[in-house]
């Protein structure tokens, strides 16, 4: 596990107080779980997450190490249970929140929806999904602050969602708009949802982008959080909104390295090229320019020009939509 000091997480050896020693013992006793501490003004929490997705005890959030140990003891001894959320009561302190499965989407009539996500663990290779990589590219790897305006980020991520489906074969981007292709629905819920939307109404890419952009940033952030890449940080003041912060700075930085290597290779990987194209389209050019060689912009343009027409269409329409938003002062 690549280590990196973030503002909120503590790592082994960071301190030697009694809490730190208890934390180290917990980590030693329960290697199946990843346990870390998040500090915010006035509050410290311990977050535990199973490293590999399994049914059963998955995530625990508490501010009491003894309760955490008790829960982990009980959880690992118990047979995998159903979809339950248990809360423990312990005096005035915040009760522990225990999740035995990631909470599914509460869309109407989908109580039986099961997360068909394959087992993923936070790592340098990422989730393998375009929109996830683009989200991490578009936000600071330590603070989670965005590098682009909200609407530009939304449009870029909307393009990323469409491109994901196109690359995986779930949809085909035709001149008139995307159409559903392939019988098998995608394995993750968000991609499946986008595919269902495309199936329900025919629209050109130019209308899908602003429609998906309305919630793309939040949806992709939640998907990354379910995969363990992001953690929600409560706001410092009541009037502010909470923020998503990458859990591991190196994993959050990895998409940029993927772009770099994709542009450097002879046979350019589609994922990296599309990612680079979408990043440039939504205004991350200056970010890329910081870390990529000086002629990267031209290499991206050349590489994008060699993509399939459908993917090229998504990238150019994303760029046009972001530029139009800039020209209309509503970016």
């Amino acid at each position, binding site marked *: 596990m690549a280590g990196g000091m973030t503002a909120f997480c503590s790592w082994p050896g960071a301190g030697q107080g009694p809490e730190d020693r208890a934390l180290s013992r917990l980590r030693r006793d329960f290697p199946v779980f990843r346990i870390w501490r998040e500090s915010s003004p006035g509050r410290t929490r311990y977050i535990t997450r199973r490293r590999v997705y399994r049914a059963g005890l998955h995530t625990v959030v508490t501010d009491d190490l003894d309760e955490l140990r008790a829960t982990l003891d009980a959880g690992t001894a118990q047979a995998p249970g159903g979809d339950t959320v248990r809360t423990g009561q312990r005096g005035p302190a915040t009760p522990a929140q225990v999740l035995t499965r*990631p*909470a*599914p*989407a*509460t*869309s*109407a*009539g*989908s109580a039986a929806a099961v997360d068909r996500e394959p087992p993923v663990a936070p790592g340098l290779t990422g989730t393998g999904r375009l929109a996830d990589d683009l989200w991490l590219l578009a936000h600071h790897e330590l603070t989670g602050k965005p*590098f*682009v*305006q909200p609407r*530009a980020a939304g449009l870029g991520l909307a393009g990323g969602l469409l491109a994901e489906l196109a690359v995986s074969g779930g949809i085909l981007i035709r*001149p008139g708009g995307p159409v559903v292709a392939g019988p098998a629905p995608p394995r993750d*819920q*968000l991609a*499946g*949802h986008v595919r*269902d*939307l495309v199936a*329900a*109404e025919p*629209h*050109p890419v*130019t*209308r*899908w982008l*602003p*429609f998906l952009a*309305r919630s793309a940033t*939040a*949806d992709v952030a*939640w*998907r990354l959080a*379910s995969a363990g890449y992001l953690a929600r940080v409560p706001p410092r003041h009541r009037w502010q909104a909470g923020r998503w912060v990458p859990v591991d700075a190196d994993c959050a930085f990895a998409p940029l390295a993927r772009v770099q290597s994709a542009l450097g290779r002879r046979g350019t990987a589609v994922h990296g090229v599309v990612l680079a194209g979408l990043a440039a389209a*939504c*205004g991350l*050019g*200056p*970010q890329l320019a910081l870390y990529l060689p000086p002629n990267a912009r031209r290499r991206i343009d050349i590489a994008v020009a060699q993509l399939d027409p459908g993917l090229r*269409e998504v990238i*150019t*329409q994303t*760029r*046009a939509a*972001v*530029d*139009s*938003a*800039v*020209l*209309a*002062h*509503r*970016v």
Partner: protein
Amino acid sequence: MPSLPATTTKPGTVSRALARDRLGVSAVVFFVLAGVAPLTVAAGVIPTAYQTTGLTAIPAAFVVVAVILGIFSAGYVAMSRRITNAGSFYAFVARGLGRPAGVAAALVALVSYSLLQVGLFGAFGPNAASEAATHLGVHAPWWAWALGAWTVITVLGVLRVDITGWVLGVLLTVEITVVVAEAAAGLAHPAGGHLSFAALSPVSLAHGGFATFGVLAVVAVLGYVGFEQAPVLGEETRHPKRTVPAATYTALALIAVVYAGAAWAMATHAGTSHVVAAAGQQGPGLLFGLGGAGLSQAAQVLFLTSLFAAALAFHNTSWRYIYALGREGVLPGVLGRTGGNNIPKAASLTQSITGLTTITLYAAAGWDPVSHMFFWLGTTGGFGVLVLLALTSLAVIVFFARHRGGESRWQRLVAPALAAALLTGIVVLAVAHYRLLLGVPAGDPAAWALPATYGVAAVAGLGWALILKACRPQVYATIGLGAHAATGQLTPTGQATR
């Protein structure tokens, strides 16, 4: 995971969802009027026009020009539905009259809006200096205040893209209220005791001859500049086909009433035969003095905010042109790129450099900022927009001749032809009598040099377009498309034409 919308969508889900984020007529009207900046014209342009030109038929000119611009708008908004990048005149000309003409129009537009923007510093500086000297006891030269405003606009231009809408909206509403109040007060106390409608009637325009009409029409067009910006927000509105025309006509009608009313009130209050002299003495005070002391004071402060808002709006218009041209490749590509936070810093700074150069030049040379910077550069900018309006009318006719699409004959032929004839006539008259507009004696070089800059810009544009055609055909092919240059589309929802 937050709840995703139900996957079984009803027909029209996407359309309804998109409509919710979009703007209505009032938002577009506010955007347009904020650029027009009524108080700037009412207190800045009109008194200076009275003084400089010596002509008194200004109210009538505003009414007649409003009608002409209304006729122009019929074809203009009809074509704006059919093309992309409709926020810029050069897109119309490129699609109608061809790409070389489009580049020529683009350069003319760049020069016009730049002049309009930098000219405003020439009004802000002296007025801020006199206000500060009177009320704060601070004595600084006009160019110091102008540079101060320039700095704020430059900083805003590199920090934000979105316009602080509600702030401008509030200021605008108060501005209009103040102008109307002042005009009402002026009309209530006419010189000589009775109200004369002579200044309003078009007959008074005819008395002065064509020269008069040409010159006053340029002043009036200067007052209306900004009304053409409604298509900028076209794609952001719920019903572009209805909203853009509605906003354009509403803005035109509103400002016609405000301007004609204010100019008439000034002439009535001072007396038609004395208004020129009064304007020479009082300047903007000609408007402020119509009402009581409190109204006058409020108007003076709002005049400064109005000048600032107008300078900011024209700064935005200028960088929009530069950015769109940079995106296409007509101007260097660096100008078409955004920096951090999606802000087109290069385009914004380019316009800022123009402003800085001009202020420094006038300060160093010691030329009078109000008449030589504000009025000369402002009216020259207005003249440039007049040329663009005439060109656009012609482009509308040719475009609809080639791309019939169900527009009525009035929209595609009669209105633009009428507008083209009238506007071209005004352009010719204005060029012939430009010295009257500037208020300089015959033979003064400024009278031909200032309009000639547009000739130079147009020729340079034509030449550059032909060079692009020879050396960079892929750039030449996308002239006029602006943000959609990469997609090569005719309309945002049209098929890709490449």
